């Protein structure tokens, strides 16, 4: 089962309102390489993992990603708080506001809706773990792009922390992949 704990995994603070940045960070909420895609990838793929180590790592990283969704949504709310009609329109968020007001929604930075096609569950543990390592690198690259888009030191701090988590997850998936490869090789006879 899953349990909710009423706190963020890491503090999310902003210096000031920034509607354009709010729009950009939504990419890590409902974008192709965002936190929802990552979480759904891992929490689904674990059901066909052959080793307990990889069931564990997919479960625990998939769960951590849910916490990252909450952080990104919080960042969005804090960046958009107090936005005026003019600011929303200038940031290209008029249409977004019509549909969702200032609630975070599962879309990318351009408003494209999240789709389960952003996720993969091949059922083959090697294919899935390579996919997950690539997913972490794509998320790492997205966070680097977001860091370049802001001058706010507090926003940068949160984004840097999230970026570092992608690197740790990549490392852990790599170790999981090695364990699965050793396991499958030990069972293969020609």
């Amino acid at each position, binding site marked *: 089962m899953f*349990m*909710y*704990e*009423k*706190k*963020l*995994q*890491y*503090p*999310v603070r902003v210096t000031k309102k920034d509607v354009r940045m709010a729009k950009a960070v939504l990419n890590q909420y409902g974008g192709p390489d965002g936190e929802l895609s990552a979480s759904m990838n891992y929490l689904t793929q674990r059901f066909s993992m052959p080793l307990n*180590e990889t069931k*564990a*790592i997919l479960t*625990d*990283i998939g769960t*951590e990603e849910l916490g990252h969704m*909450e952080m990104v*949504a*919080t960042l969005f*709310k*804090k960046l958009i708080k107090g936005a005026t009609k003019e600011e929303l329109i200038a940031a290209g968020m008029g249409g977004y506001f019509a549909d969702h007001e200032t609630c975070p929604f599962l879309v990318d930075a351009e408003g494209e809706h999240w789709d389960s096609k952003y996720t993969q569950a091949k059922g083959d543990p090697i294919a899935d773990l390579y996919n997950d390592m690539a997913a972490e690198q794509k998320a790492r690259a997205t966070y680097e792009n977001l860091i370049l888009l802001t001058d706010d030191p507090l926003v940068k701090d949160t984004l840097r922390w999230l970026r570092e988590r992608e690197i*740790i*997850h990549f490392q*852990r998936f790599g*170790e*999981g992949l090695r*364990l699965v490869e050793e396991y499958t090789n030990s069972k293969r006879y020609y």
Partner: protein
Amino acid sequence: MVSYNRTAQEALRQQHEMLLEVQKLQFAALDTALYLDTHPNDPVALYRHKMYTDRLKTVKEAYEMQFGPMTIFGQEVGDYWRYVNSPWPWEM
């Protein structure tokens, strides 16, 4: 024991401070746990995980005693379910 004459601002500052301690220790425990998932017999990681989770238990209990349960499985010691009205993470 909570003193009743301090301002709401002071209370919030103290909550942030205690929360940060919980976040730090939980992060250390989580990161060690992820490592243990792929290295379940690493003695140093096992030792560290035990150290972090021991300390986490203490600071979390103190936090929950003062500000209410963080989870619906936390214990409410008062006569009101503070979980509802303690600040939500995106509003803190």
